[in-house]
Structures are given as C-alpha cells and as structure tokens.
C-alpha cells in the first residue's frame, strides 16, 4: 500500500509542477511501470509474453502497450477490483461485455481532470454557469463522462448550474430558459455534453425556430461523437450549426477526446478549422505508430494512437487505441476510428461474424 501512496504522491507533485521535464516524465513512467508489472498480474503475464520486464524497459516508449479492448478481457488493476472507489465502464460492448476501468481512489483522476480542464476550458475564468447535456453521476454511476461532468459542475460551475436532461431526453423548457436567461443577462454560459445531445438540440431548436446569441465568454464542450444516438454530422457542419444556433464563436467550441480506459483527457483550442489539433497535459504522451511493428511512423503519416497516461497509475499507463491519427508539432489530428478491416476476398471477416452472432442472439 505504501508503494501506491508513494506513486500517488509523486504523481500529484508531477501533475502540479508545470515545469516538469521529459526526463521527469520518463522516470515516473518507469516507476509506475515497475509498480504495475509487480501488482497487475494479467499485465505482467502480457509483458512476459512480449519479453519485456522492468529491467529491460529503459524509456517510457518501451512500455508494452495494451490494446484498449483488453479492458473487456481481464481485470487490469494493481489493487483488488472489489475495493475500487469507482469502476468506470465503456458504453460500447462486444457480445454484451463492457470494458471495466478500476480506480482504487479518484484522487488522481480528479486532479488530472480539474487541472487540465481549468487550463484548457476555463482558462482565466474561475466559475461559469454550466448547463449539462448528459445524465447525472447518480443516474450513470459507471460512466466516466458522467463523473467528469459532475466534477466540472462541482469545481467550476456557479450555483445556478443545471443538468438539462429529463426522462424523455432534452429538457427543452429548461434549456430554452437557460439560454434566454444568458442572452438577457449577458452572463457567460457554458454548455457541456455528449456530441449527440447537441445534435438533438439542433433538431429541437430548428423545430421551434429559435436561435440564440450567447454572451461573450460563453463556451461549448462536446465529446464522444454520435454513438448511433443521433444523426451523424460532418465535423464542419456540426460546429457550423453550433455557432449558428447558439451564436458562439467556433473558436470557443472545444471538443474533448477521452476514453474510459484513460484518466486524462485531450482538448483542442476550438474548432474554427477541422479536424482540430488535440493535445494533452504534460502527464500524458501520445505516439503514432504502425501497429504491426509497434514503431512510430514518420511525422505527418497516418498511424494508430498509443497513449501513455501517467494518471492511469492503477491499471496500465500505455494503451493502444483504435483511433487513427497524425502527429504534428502541437499534438495530433484525430482521423477517426479504425474500422474493422473489410473482407477482401470471400472469406468471412471477424466483424461480419460478430454481427451474425449478435443477430442470432437476439
């Protein structure tokens, strides 16, 4: 347990110290790797299969990455999953199995979230009136996004902040009330939620024929894409509609990229130009790799993203995503999900088989 507390202490210092160097990052990453190798047994077995032990791993780039869907296979935790303060689960399922991310304490997750959120979304503002287009933590106790948004409201929202969903979806009366109020008082307003909820919002506003012009300093945060919950909009159209319906500058429409399997989020600096450049704070680093060799691709070439998130101190720091991207000087461009490879010949593809299995299970 002391070891865990040590790591939490070091992490806290590291996160709070903005002048941490790459060398510090490396040291801490290796310390956490050694800890995870020792206590996270499925991960240890995985590393052994790869022939990688703490003795052989010299830099954070050598830390074996775990495919994101491994969270569906085995419990990846250095402590007993039963004792976790929080278990975040993925929304996507394969054969009804959801990925689970165990957090023995939310101390680091919360620190990572608030420090980064302040820097990238709040900026100079201390508090803002927030409207949330997502269920509450109580309604979705296993959703990392619900926790994230609750934290945003708790740490940065004024007392008048509200959740704007009800059983049937958007609480339009309340929403219209909030937006009108903001427009009338000139008090900046922040609307946060799932990307698909904004699409529902566009549809509702279109229906009632209303547009708003939110006061200066207002901002939007969307995340998570559409997940088959709404119409799929092109990025450009999405941000254009946001700016048309709510009267906010596209530069203050921030997209957050985060996954249940990480404890740190990425942000862009607005979506005037899409796709926007995403970047994270100094305690997460991203590599763009060729998945076959595991080597980094040349800068500017397409590859798959691997994140090394030190805030993931209890599970695995380094994760192979299913996201395609390109690295540039300021961060990376997200180019969407790696879709299941299509069948090229006449042999069945894994995806098609899974579809069939799902269909017959219904």
């Amino acid at each position, binding site marked *: 347990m002391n070891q865990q507390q040590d790591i939490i202490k070091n992490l806290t210092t590291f996160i709070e110290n903005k002048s941490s160097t790459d060398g510090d990052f490396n040291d801490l990453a290796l310390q956490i790797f050694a800890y995870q190798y020792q206590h996270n*047994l*499925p991960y240890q*077995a*995985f590393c052994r*299969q*790869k022939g990688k032990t703490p003795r052989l791993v010299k830099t954070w780039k050598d830390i074996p*990455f*775990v*495919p*994101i*869907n*491994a969270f569906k*296979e*085995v419990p990846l935790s250095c402590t007993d999953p039963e004792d976790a303060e929080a278990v975040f689960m993925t929304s996507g399922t394969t054969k009804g199995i959801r990925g689970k991310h165990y957090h023995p304490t939310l101390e680091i997750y919360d620190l990572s979230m608030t420090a980064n959120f302040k820097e990238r979304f709040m900026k100079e503002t201390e508090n803002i009136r927030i409207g949330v287009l997502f269920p509450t933590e109580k309604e979705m106790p296993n959703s990392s996004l619900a926790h994230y948004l609750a934290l945003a409201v708790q740490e940065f929202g004024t007392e008048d902040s509200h959740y704007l969903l009800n059983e049937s979806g958007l609480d339009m009366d309340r929403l219209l009330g909030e937006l009108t109020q903001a427009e009338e008082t000139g008090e900046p307003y922040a609307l946060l939620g799932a990307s698909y909820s904004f699409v529902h919002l566009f549809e509702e506003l279109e229906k009632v024929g209303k547009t708003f012009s939110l006061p200066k300093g207002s901002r939007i945060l969307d995340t998570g894409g559409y997940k088959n919950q709404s119409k799929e909009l092109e990025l450009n159209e999405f941000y254009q509609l946001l700016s048309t319906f709510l009267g906010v500058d596209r530069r203050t429409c921030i997209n957050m990229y985060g996954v249940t399997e990480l404890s740190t989020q990425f942000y862009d600096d607005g979506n005037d130009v899409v796709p926007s450049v995403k970047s994270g704070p100094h305690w997460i680093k991203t590599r763009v790799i*060729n*998945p*076959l*060799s*595991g080597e980094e691709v040349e800068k500017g070439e*397409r*590859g*798959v993203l691997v994140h090394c998130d030190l805030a993931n101190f209890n599970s695995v720091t380094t994760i*192979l995503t*299913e996201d*395609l991207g390109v690295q540039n000087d300021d961060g990376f461009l997200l180019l969407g999900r*790696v*879709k*299941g*490879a*299509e*069948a*090229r*010949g*006449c*042999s*069945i*593809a*894994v995806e*098609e*088989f899974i*579809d*069939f299995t799902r269909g*017959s299970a219904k």
Partner: protein
Amino acid sequence: MKEVAGYIPDIGEEEFQWKVLQFGDLEVEIPLLTEEQMNLVIETVKKGSEEILKSLTISEIVTIIDRVTDRLLDRNSSYRQKAEKLLPIVTGYDEEMIRLGLTSYLKSFRKHELQRFLVEDLSNPLLLDDFQPRVKGGFSKAVGPDLITHIWAGNVPALPLWSFVSGLLVKAGNIGKVSSGEPLFASWFAHLLVEVEPRLANCFAVVWWKGGDVERETSLFRQSDIVIGYGGNHSLESLQSRIPVTTRFLPFGHKISFGLVLHSALDSQKAWRTAHQAALDVVRYDQQGCYSPHLFYVQTGGNVSPKEFARYMARELENFSKRYPRRKLSMEESASLTSWRQKEEMSLFSNQNKEVLGDSANHWTVVYEEEKGVFAPSPLNRVIRVIAFEKVEDIVPSMKPYRSFLQTVGMAASPKELFQCAEILGRIGVTRITALGRMTSPEPGWHHDGRFNITDLVQMVDIESSAEEASERFAPYED
C-alpha cells in the same frame, strides 16, 4: 502505368465516361456506363446470346474456352505476362504466389476439365445442344438463360472465372461487374475470348459501377434472368432487395473453412509434412478465399501433440514468410490484426494452457489453445488458431450454429476416419472436404457451396412421351 479494364460489346457508341481506380502507381481505367448505354449493352448481349452463343454447340464453346485458357497458361503470351506483372500490384499478393496460383487455377478450365465439369452436372452435356432422349421416355433439353448478371467481389485473382465460364457453358449472355479490388482478370478474359472467337464479341460485357447504386442495379436485375452475387451477407441482402421474384438470385456469401488433423496424421514422420501442407493453405492468398482455413483442429493422442503441431506450423509459416511474403496490409488491417493478437496475448493470463506464437513484426501468428468451444474466425492475413481436441464429436457443437457459413474442411486422416468425419461434417453444413495443401484449389466440377454450377443456371425443357406419341398421329406420313 496505365491499364484499361472492362469489356464493352459493340453498342454503336465509343464515348464513355471513365472511372480511374488507383493501385499505387498503376492507374486502372474502367468505363462507367450511363443508364442508356447500359440498356444498349443489355440488349446487345441478350441478342448475342440468342443469335451466336445458342447457335454454337457445347463442344465448340468448350474448345473456345480451352484455347483462351491455353493462352493464359502460356507464360510467353502477352496476357499472361500482363497478369503476372499487374495482378501483384493490384492485389498486393506476392508475385510468385500469384504465378503459381494462376497456373493451378487455370488448369481447371482446360478442355478435359471443362468436360468433366459438364458431365458432373448434366451427365449428358449434349442436353445443352439438343433434346436428348430420357430413359423414362420423352425428351429433355437444358436451356440457358438470355442474361446472367454476375456481381463479383474481392481481390482473390481470377475468382470471377468460375461463374463467367459457367455462364458461357450454358450459352447465356453475361454481364459481369468486377470488384474494385481486382477489376482486371475478368476483363482480359473477355478480350481474349473475342480474340480467339470474334463472333463472341457481343455476347458479354465486363463493367463496373459503385456497388449500391440502386437505380442502376434495379434496372439491370429486372432485365436479367439470373443474378449471381458474391459478397458478405450485408451486401447480398442489399442486392436481394433489388431483385424481382422473376429473376433468380444465386448468392455466394462469405465463408469459414477450417482444417481437421487426426492423430493418424501425427506420427513423427508424417507430422512435418502435414504441418507444411496446412501452412501452405494459410499462406495462399493470405487466407482471403472462402476455402481458406481460419482454424485447425488437431487431435490429441498422436506422437506429435497438438501443441507441438502448432509450433511446427509456426516454423512453416516463418519459412513461407521469407519465400512468399505477405501482402502489404492497410492501416485498418494492421490495426485489427495487432489488436487481435494483443487481445489473445492478454488472455494468456486466464488461460494457462494457451500459447501465442508469432514473430515480432507480426508477419504471422499461431494461437494454440485447448478450449474446444472456440469457433471464431481469424482476422486472416496469416493468423491461425490451433485447437486441441480429443473426439470429433466434442468440437462439432461449437460449429453447428454457423451452418450457413461453413464450406471447406482440409483433412488429414486415415481413409476410415475420412469417411466417418465426412458424415458428421456434412450434417452440420460443410460442403467440401479436401486434402491439406489443396484447400485453396477446388477440383474442376466441385460443388461450390454445395450447389450445382451448371444445373443451377439452366432450365430443363421436357417433351413428355405423351406429346411425342400424340404427335405421331399428325405426321403427314401417318397411314
């Protein structure tokens, strides 16, 4: 580099819109017909079938196809040279593998093989030419349709030949839509047919359009007698939704094939060869064919254990990866392959008897396990699962739900076991049992997915004996 694909009969027009398909440095241009042009093609091909093809005897048609095949087997012919040069670029498969694959495949379309093909289905091929007497009395003739539309898919080179040739043998007009993954071979075949027999110029077309074009497909299918479709169940379903009941639809969906190795094939002498043959089936076209193995079931109790066999296969795959390197994978394929392998490696923790073998560059992967209930497809591209089993009865239940997907089983077993297993496998939906090393080369006259290649395309016309007898009364020479 440029190459023109497609074949358009003489419809009195030569102005086409062209679609360019890019394969690295190679540009393949293919005509994209307007609806009017397409209708002219349909009309022309139907007329060609009626006036030319149906006037030829089956033996004449066989001879023409045989001559075309000859040209394609001849490594000095210009088409063969083009195929050896361009198909590796288009499909990404290794040159040597394509060369060997083409030869072994084309051999099935020589005269004697075609004759076997016909006899297999019709017993008397003359049924295609004329009314033939029947044992029970009366006469019958097999009449081919005016128009067969083929929707070809995938990038396994030359695969469209099976249905194209079957269409010609029944004297039908043929319109084939090539896939954008391999648009060339069927086009060359069409041009060669016309070079060998210019009278066939208006009997077929090879075209391309973007799949899912509702208007185009609906119109063409309405005018076709038969539509033969290849592809996944999703695309087949969408094709089906556009085919009127009056048009017959013959769908060929994606399949899962596998290997079955019994312990009789696993003595220390024979096991290496068995593993070699099994690996060969994996390497050929990187498992993209419907007959390619996704997994191997290996029986316990032999001198060589299933786990050792998995290692043998790993060794063979490693050797092959030098001699016949795998096709260069797309980012999507690379990612899904890696994530699949990593996931398997992750499960080693909860499954102590499992092994994941593979080289660091991921050129191939062998997963060994003892969980008999696993029946799941491989992500292909030289990824194989070896599953140990004791009795065939133990592994059958896990395959049963997938009847509609089962096709080939590559077997290594004693003669007695072969027939015993065939009985069991046939019952759960397997349609082809072959030797290891032969999985990707079906014999001429095989029943593709258990069906009849020729018989499914023709309509039998019977003259019943009563008609014949009755007609006697009306003969001018009747006393």
